């Protein structure tokens, strides 16, 4: 019985979906024919009954997707690729620009993610009249797209054609079937902060210690919706991790971990990030905000006027930390390796050793949040060399020349720690 249901339910859903796809679709003046396959259907649409004679012309690439399938945003995520649309001649129109509504995030098996749209999406296409009145709307588009579910991906290619006569007089009249659809998705295209009263944005690189750097985006003057999301366009230098979002008194803050694509290379002073934040509320209305901002990647680089405070420490602070650490370590080694004192002073010495060890460990923790993994490893190796020099120096009491050489070694190692701390700072 259970097995029968398991067969019947998908079959029924499949039949209903197929029936929807195969039902006759009247060729409307506001839409091209639909290209149909098992996973999706796609067509070109306009929101008008007749084409507008001048000004902006709105069009859309309309997808309907079978349950469980998705198409992609401009950054597809870990896999896939976004639709590619190549237009033929567009007489009387500027080259259409494809816009990207706010995407969703899809979790895929294997801890992979995809960014895109499920169920239905209209990618708005923005164009303008370039010639005077008298030209009908005639558009031909070659569309390549990939449709995926959790299990498989299928690429498709279609040529869609849309012809629409010109409005006889006056402005274009809206089409009751397509106009709400185009408007709905047009309104889901992210806007810049300047377009929203009282909204400001900032972006900065933040240091998360051993967890590596993260991009922090703040959007002030908005409220958090159901679940704000941060989406970055592909970046030449960084891969991104899983973003986190939280409310602030002024708005919303989001952080996404960054991982350099090329290891061991110094980061540039600054880099441009294009980001979109979805799931926000502005004056009670759902909005998405987008921006392209230049973000300093190293301390000391002047901040962008709109940027937030980067938490990377200034060089003097780090240098002072390194110096304090070297001093503590030297005192610790001296305290432990100095000639033995009377037994009654031993508890004091032990306490001093314990406090010193705790201080050094604390310092290493602080350093681990300030310098790169590689830098920390080299610093620890230098500290190890210092300890070795100090130990050997004590054993070489009868050989003054060797003691001097080892003393010099201690000094070199101390300077090396300072130098390494200064030159391996996290961005």
């Amino acid at each position, binding site marked *: 019985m259970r097995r029968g249901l398991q067969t019947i339910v998908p079959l029924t859903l499949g039949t209903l979906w197929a029936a929807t796809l195969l039902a006759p679709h009247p060729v409307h003046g506001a839409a091209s024919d639909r290209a149909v396959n098992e996973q999706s259907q796609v067509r070109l649409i306009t929101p008008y009954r007749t084409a507008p004679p001048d000004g902006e012309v709105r069009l859309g690439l309309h997808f309907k997707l079978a349950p469980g399938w998705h198409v992609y945003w401009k950054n597809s995520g870990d896999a*896939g*690729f976004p639709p590619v649309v190549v237009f033929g001649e567009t007489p009387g129109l500027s080259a259409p620009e494809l816009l990207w509504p706010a995407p969703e995030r899809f979790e895929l*098996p294997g801890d992979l993610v995809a960014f895109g749209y499920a169920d239905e999406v209209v990618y708005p296409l923005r164009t303008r009249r370039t010639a005077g009145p008298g030209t009908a709307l005639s558009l031909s588009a070659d569309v390549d797209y990939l449709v995926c579910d959790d299990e498989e991906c299928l690429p498709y*290619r279609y040529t869609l054609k849309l012809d629409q006569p010109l409005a006889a007089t006056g402005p274009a009249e809206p089409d009751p079937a397509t106009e709400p659809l185009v408007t709905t998705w047009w309104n889901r295209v992210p806007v810049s902060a300047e377009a929203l009263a009282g909204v400001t944005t900032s972006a900065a690189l933040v240091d998360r210690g051993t967890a590596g750097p993260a991009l922090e985006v703040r959007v002030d003057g908005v409220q958090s919706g159901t679940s704000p999301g941060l989406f970055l366009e592909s970046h030449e230098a960084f891969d991104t991790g899983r973003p986190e979002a939280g409310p602030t008194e002024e708005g919303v803050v989001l952080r996404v971990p960054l991982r350099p694509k090329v*290891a061991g290379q110094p980061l540039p002073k600054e880099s441009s990030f294009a980001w979109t934040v979805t799931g926000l509320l502005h004056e009670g209305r759902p909005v998405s905000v987008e921006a392209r901002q230049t973000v300093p990647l190293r301390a000391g680089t002047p901040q962008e006027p709109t940027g937030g405070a980067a938490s990377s420490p200034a060089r003097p602070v780090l240098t002072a930390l390194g110096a304090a650490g070297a001093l503590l370590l030297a005192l610790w080694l001296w305290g432990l390796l100095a000639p033995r004192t009377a037994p009654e002073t031993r508890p004091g010495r032990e306490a001093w050793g314990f406090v010193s060890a705790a201080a050094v460990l604390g310092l290493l923790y602080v350093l681990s949040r300030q310098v790169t*993994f590689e830098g920390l490893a080299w610093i620890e190796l230098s500290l*190890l060399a210092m300890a070795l020099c100090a130990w050997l120096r004590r054993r070489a009491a009868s050989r003054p020349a060797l003691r001097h050489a080892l003393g010099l070694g201690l000094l070199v190692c101390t300077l090396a720690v300072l130098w390494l701390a200064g030159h391996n700072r996290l961005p």
Partner: protein
Amino acid sequence: MRSNRTTSATLLLLTGLTLAALPAFATGAVGDKAPDFSLKGVDGKTVSLADLKGRVVVLEWINPNCPFSDRHVREKTMTTLNKKYGQVVWLGINSTNPGHRDFLKPADHLAYNQKNGITYSVLYDETGQVGKAYDAKTTPHLYIIDEQGKIVYNGAIDDDPSGRKGMPERVNYVDGGLAEELASKPVDPASTKPYGCSIKY
């Protein structure tokens, strides 16, 4: 005596901290040491990366049931490069989970390889551990490893996800990368965004 014990403990602690920091480098990024692996091929022979030290190696994540991977097989993108750079070791790695419908049994994979002229070794990574160690995401996803065992390229095979361009118009990143690597020049670009199906881990 106590002093020696404390010193030894300190040395051990510092060594431990140093060693603990080192594995964080192995992430599959360009510049990282290529994670080692030893995997059994569809022909039953085991291949270890450690045995290929001193050779330039290309790793290609492959899934015959992925339309992108299959398109490049049909277009002979990889086999042509494999022949062009005979001194390079080309390895296919299939990280498809054996429970996934895309998984091909050895006999079927071997037949697919023979039918399509794939003469290089294709290895099974059934647990996905190797794929995840390299942070491989798509089929195809390609890596070039230099003679010292360092990753010098990570990304797509070319700049044409949709396959719309003709072969001569495509920028084949691995072709360019191998030419540069073999001429002892820096690989540029060293990193691109891979495209295709997600790996079925």
